[in-house]
């Protein structure tokens, strides 16, 4: 148990009662400095958690974007169920908690010198660094798919400034009657395993009303995917034959694109003409993780399963999609859940408090298939002797069954999904 010290109690009381006045002044942030790179599901959660539970530590959050646009619920923009404003979040709540939020890009990390250099030249010293930089897209992994191509065939797989998901929505609205929507879906591992299939669903949801003779061709570099049975049940029940999913074993792997001629070219040379192309390319950890030398040959960052400290550098804890967390999925929920363990581990030597000996990492990925039609997969994980392991007999997916029988469950899960989104974004930004 952690004893409540006089200083800790005063700071906690101050945080709850006087957050909106001048909390930074009430805190003696003298124990050390934690810098967080990346203000997404991992980084914002880490900064907020640290500011609440470790008020004696000064927390600085570095994030280039002025606001955060979530990838979760981005697909609902395509389905017409959310607007960009609905999934855009302000950092004001974190500032009000006394977190120093710097809107700049972290240009480099000096692991030996314990400092971060920003793009504007400023150098931030840290005692502990939480690195939650997300992914980068492997431009060129699909021949012909580069940043210019993404203006024609959007990926819409990173929130960024919202322009990619907006472009995809505009293209969907402009789809010719009876047009073909093509998706190229990457091999594992990649951000948000059920995401492409929720996207297919939400595109179908839009087209069913606006363009019912349109067709969706989903080309996959895999032969199986997350919640596959549930998705395929939902597609058949709601969208009939609008959706065709082509697995790798039926030449579904797209190896080249020709945006000018609106072509997807498969592994075995078949050319597919599409009216709208959404290319979700292969991915790796964000470039700063590569440049700091934290990644291995896979392009992702090996970390210690109990602390998330990078194998390659002390005092840098890497959370979120950038790390190798298998069998945990690269999800916002895992980034949030693991951020707290990482902060507790990082700040143990700074504050003299105990790290957590037996942490549990939770995940739920909800997906919307249609109106009042939600499904989920739940996983519970623990660090073990040989990496992270899924807890036996835990979790699972929503029960399958005909819609006539399951409709109340699907409607409830859609509501749970909305509630999950509200809760987790509060745990990041409020």
């Amino acid at each position, binding site marked *: 148990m952690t004893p409540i010290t006089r200083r800790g109690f005063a700071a906690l009381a101050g945080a709850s009662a006087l957050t909106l006045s001048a909390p930074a002044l009430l805190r003696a942030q003298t124990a050390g400095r934690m810098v967080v790179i990346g203000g997404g599901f991992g980084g914002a959660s880490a900064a907020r958690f640290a500011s609440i539970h470790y008020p004696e530590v000064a927390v600085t959050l570095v994030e280039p974007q002025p606001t955060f646009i979530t990838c979760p619920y981005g697909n609902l923009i395509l389905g017409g169920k959310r607007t960009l404003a609905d999934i855009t979040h302000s950092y004001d709540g974190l500032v009000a908690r006394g977190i120093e939020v710097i809107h700049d890009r972290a240009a480099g990390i000096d692991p030996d010198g314990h400092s971060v250099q920003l793009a504007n030249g400023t150098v931030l010293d840290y005692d502990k660094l939480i690195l939650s930089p997300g992914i980068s897209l492997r431009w060129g992994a699909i021949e012909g798919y580069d940043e210019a191509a993404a203006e024609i065939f959007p990926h819409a797989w990173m929130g960024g400034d919202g322009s990619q998901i907006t472009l995809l929505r505009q293209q969907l609205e402009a789809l010719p009657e009876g047009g073909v929507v093509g998706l190229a879906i990457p091999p594992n591992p990649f951000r948000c395993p059920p995401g492409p299939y929720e996207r297919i669903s939400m595109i179908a949801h839009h087209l069913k009303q606006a363009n019912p003779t349109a067709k969706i061709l989903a080309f996959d570099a895999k032969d199986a995917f997350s919640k596959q049975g549930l998705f395929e049940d939902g597609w058949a029940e709601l969208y009939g034959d609008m959706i065709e999913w082509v697995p790798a*074993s*039926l*030449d579904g792997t797209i190896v080249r694109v020709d945006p000018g001629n609106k072509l997807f070219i498969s*592994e*075995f*040379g*078949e050319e597919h003409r599409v009216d709208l192309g959404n290319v979700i390319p292969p991915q790796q950890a964000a470039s700063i993780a590569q440049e700091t030398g934290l990644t291995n040959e896979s392009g992702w960052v090996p970390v210690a399963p109990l602390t998330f400290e990078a194998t390659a550098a002390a005092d840098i804890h890497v959370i979120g999609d950038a790390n190798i967390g298998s069998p945990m999925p690269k999800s916002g929920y895992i980034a949030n859940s693991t951020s707290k363990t990482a902060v507790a581990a990082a700040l143990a030597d700074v504050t003299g408090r105990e790290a957590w000996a037996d942490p549990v990492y939770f995940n739920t990925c909800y997906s919307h298939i249609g109106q009042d039609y939600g499904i989920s997969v739940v996983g519970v994980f623990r660090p073990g002797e040989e990496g992270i392991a899924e807890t036996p007999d835990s979790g699972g997916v929503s029960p399958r069954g005909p819609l006539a029988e399951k409709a109340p469950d699907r409607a409830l899960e859609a509501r749970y999904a909305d509630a999950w989104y509200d809760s987790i974004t509060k745990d990041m930004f409020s």
Partner: protein
Amino acid sequence: MSTPRIRLPETAAPGDVIEIRTLIDHEMITAVSSSAPRDMLSRFEATMNGETVIAVDYANGSAANPTLTFFVRAEAPGDFVFTWTHEDGTTFTAEGTVEVG
């Protein structure tokens, strides 16, 4: 169904090891655990200039949509013929040429 697909380089330097990928869509129904009629390919064979470079027998453990990737050292220009044979004797073929030099 049962469309052969092949992928091989158009050209190679003498002595290069080239990768050849093959795929045929076929359900490979064994009928062991279902009442559907048996529908299985029994063999795949690839030849280069008439000489066998790989031959594979399929049986009940073989997965649907069999795909094979293999490597051949290209010493001279190669005319490849790929043949899949069904248990009922039907054959499916594809051909390809690699220029070497």
